[in-house]
């Protein structure tokens, strides 16, 4: 087994349009998807990320507020999973509810194993 990281982007614009009942239904979709991964022992860890943050650069001499990117480019959350190959990890990511949103996407990256 190899570890892979999913980085989630987008989907916020759609969420802002949702009614409370739809927000709850959306949350349930995520939970079902994650429970599916957990049952197969493929889920390691994951959490959403807050919108606010800092950018540190130039040897630490420059600190600015927040991610610079547009809404759909900001990483909104991450998930670490077990999979046998990048192909399998990619296939697994296709069930993610963020893909229902027009601007939602998942970046799948292998975690380097030294």
């Amino acid at each position, binding site marked *: 087994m190899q570890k892979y990281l999913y980085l989630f982007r987008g989907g916020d614009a759609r*969420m*802002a349009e*949702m*009614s*409370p*009942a*739809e*927000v*709850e239904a*959306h*949350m349930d979709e*995520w*939970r079902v998807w*994650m429970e599916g991964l957990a049952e197969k022992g493929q889920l390691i860890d*994951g*959490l*959403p990320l807050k919108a606010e943050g800092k950018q540190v650069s130039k040897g630490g001499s420059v600190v600015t507020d927040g991610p610079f990117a547009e809404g759909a480019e900001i990483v*909104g*959350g991450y*998930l670490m999973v077990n999979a046998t190959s990048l192909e399998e990890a990619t296939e697994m990511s296709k069930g993610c509810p963020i893909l229902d949103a027009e601007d939602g996407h998942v970046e799948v990256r292998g975690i380097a194993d030294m």
Partner: protein
Amino acid sequence: MTFFMPTAVNQKLDHLFRHEYGKLVSMFANKYSPELIDTIEDAVQESLYKAAKLWSFQPMPDNPSAWLYRVANNQIIDYLRKDNRSVSYDLAISTNHIEEEENVLPEERAIVDDQLRMIFACCHPTMKPTEQLMLSLKLLCGLSVKEIARAFLKQEEATKRAITRAKVKFREEVGELKVPIGADLEQRLEAVLQVIYLLFNEGYKATEGNQLIKQELCEEAIRLAFLLTNEPSCDNGELKALISMMLLKAARFPARIDEAGNLLTLEKQDRTKYDEDHIKWGWQFLHDSSKFEGSSVYQLEAAISCYYTTAASHEKTNWKAILSLYDTLVKLKPVPVVQMSRVLVLSKVKGASFALNEMEGLEEIINGNQSFLALKADLYAEIGDWSAARVHLQKSISQALNITERRFLEKKLQSWIGK
């Protein structure tokens, strides 16, 4: 005196986010001001997004309400600070110490009281009944504009405008949130019960549209009525009768739709599917309502529902008893729908020609009323006067409000051709 609602009735109301929305909006409208309703709604909405994101990844906390309350409250405080409104609302945000306390979810009883005051605010007399209805659904029940439009089969834009109008009045006219007392209470309570009644009927009406969301309107009406039972000055015979009527009608929900999703009329429903708990509680509330003096419209309607719902079969319905209730009801409430229902029952008791004779005095109402015309057609068919039956059915079709109704009637007309 805690929030009471029979578990068997309550268990179907599994709408955490929607109900949290209504509860939180009520709490903050009480805590801050009705003037801040837009800010409050935004903050509560925001707290739900945050919660959904977090709880997608990890289990919900033991007390999700407290979490949402804290996040939404902080959001409102942030807004007030940024907007420099802290002067007028300084009590709420003056020191960190208070802020800590402010973030603790109030006790159940206080939350119920907040919602009670909110019901009266949403039914403020400056608003039209439809505005009261829509505002209640938005602020107390957590339905979105889109969902409300869908439930009422209205355009989203028109619904949005009505809610916006109602909100302007809510911000400007309502003032301090309170349950009225004395003579004021009587008048306002009547309006509140009326809104609950309309809400229920809107959901119960046998028209096209998403049945699920319509059923939810009925559930919300019942929930709001149960909230009112927590206020002793509101908990009168009329409220009990209204609850009884709603429970007895809602008992039929499981039998109202066939497997293909079509609505079934009373005679075609499988009575074994009626919800026994609803019937039991409906009966109990009808009984309790009779302990109060005088008989109200709601009580008569509850008693009628009771006869319909508890009859062993459609044929065994106690039409005579129902007719005598309608005889009284039609005097208290001479509206077309009551008159039509009475004529229908009359035809069961005294036959179709008797009922047709009775209808002669009602021509003016009948001609503008699609379902009345359809009933008249049915009665003519029953006595074998097919040409009169077809004429009336055609008139009814020309007034049908929606495609489902029209199709249903046209199918009937086809089967009548050549008779």
